[in-house]
């Protein structure tokens, strides 16, 4: 698989290490009253879709960026990649708006 790095162009997936579902960017507040209830699904539960999946890849043998890659888990087709930092900034900007869109 080749991952279209937003800064460096197409790069071999071998240079990356894989973390998993991009919902891991939405870390709950560890200081909140209900932290135990919110951290259980955050840490352990996954949607595990057959089809489009937004997921975190780390460019370990590269520029050390975290990317959010959109990939089809049935065909391995990669539809796009963006810097996770950009996704987080966008989430912050529209925090009231909600999720990862």
């Amino acid at each position, binding site marked *: 698989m080749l991952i279209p790095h937003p800064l460096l162009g197409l790069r*071999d997936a071998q240079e990356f290490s894989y973390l998993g579902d991009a919902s891991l960017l939405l870390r709950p507040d560890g200081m909140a009253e209900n932290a135990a209830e919110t951290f259980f699904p955050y840490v352990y539960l996954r949607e595990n879709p057959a089809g489009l999946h937004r997921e975190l890849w780390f460019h370990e*043998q590269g520029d050390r*960026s975290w990317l959010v890659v959109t990939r089809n888990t049935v065909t391995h087709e990669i539809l796009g990649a963006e810097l996770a930092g950009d996704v987080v900034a966008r989430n912050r900007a529209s925090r009231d708006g909600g999720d990862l869109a």
Partner: protein
Amino acid sequence: MPDLEPITALGSNAPRSLSSGSLTLEENAALALASVSLRRNAPKPSPFGLDLPGPGGWTGSQGVSAFWTGPGQWMIEGHHRADSDFAVEVATSCPGCSVTEQTDGFAAFEIRSSMGEKPILRLMEKLVNIDASRLSAGSATRTGLEHMSVFVIRRAPDRVAVLGMRSAAGSIWHALEVAILRLNAAAA
């Protein structure tokens, strides 16, 4: 005082070198390195007058050069300055940036071709999973080489440098040596 003698990353008193066919491989023990990282919202500095390059770029002039290592991060190379306190010089010319001494963290290997770029391209095709023809002179990128993380710098059409972890210097040398010898054996 005990009589201490400096040794190179490969463990000898003098840098190792190898010549085979049109290619020369040389351990570059004199390369000083310092990394520069921007603080949040800080302006881009220009150490030693260098215009720091964008993603995937390398630039050099007058004994110093720089390559992009990540967003807001560069590595500065001081040629023939490994025995100096290079990081302090870099820090002075990069006010407000985070500068870290890197000289002893890496081992550098320079590969030259006496027959233009073709042998360099063929060697890179054997060694790294990057499109060699697009890594033109003035490019630098980090990638994997036999499971080791390395920087590959195309200093000129007929010159490429490989920078890797100093602790893996022997393995990197072995990988480069084997690839060069096999390439020339296949060509012969």
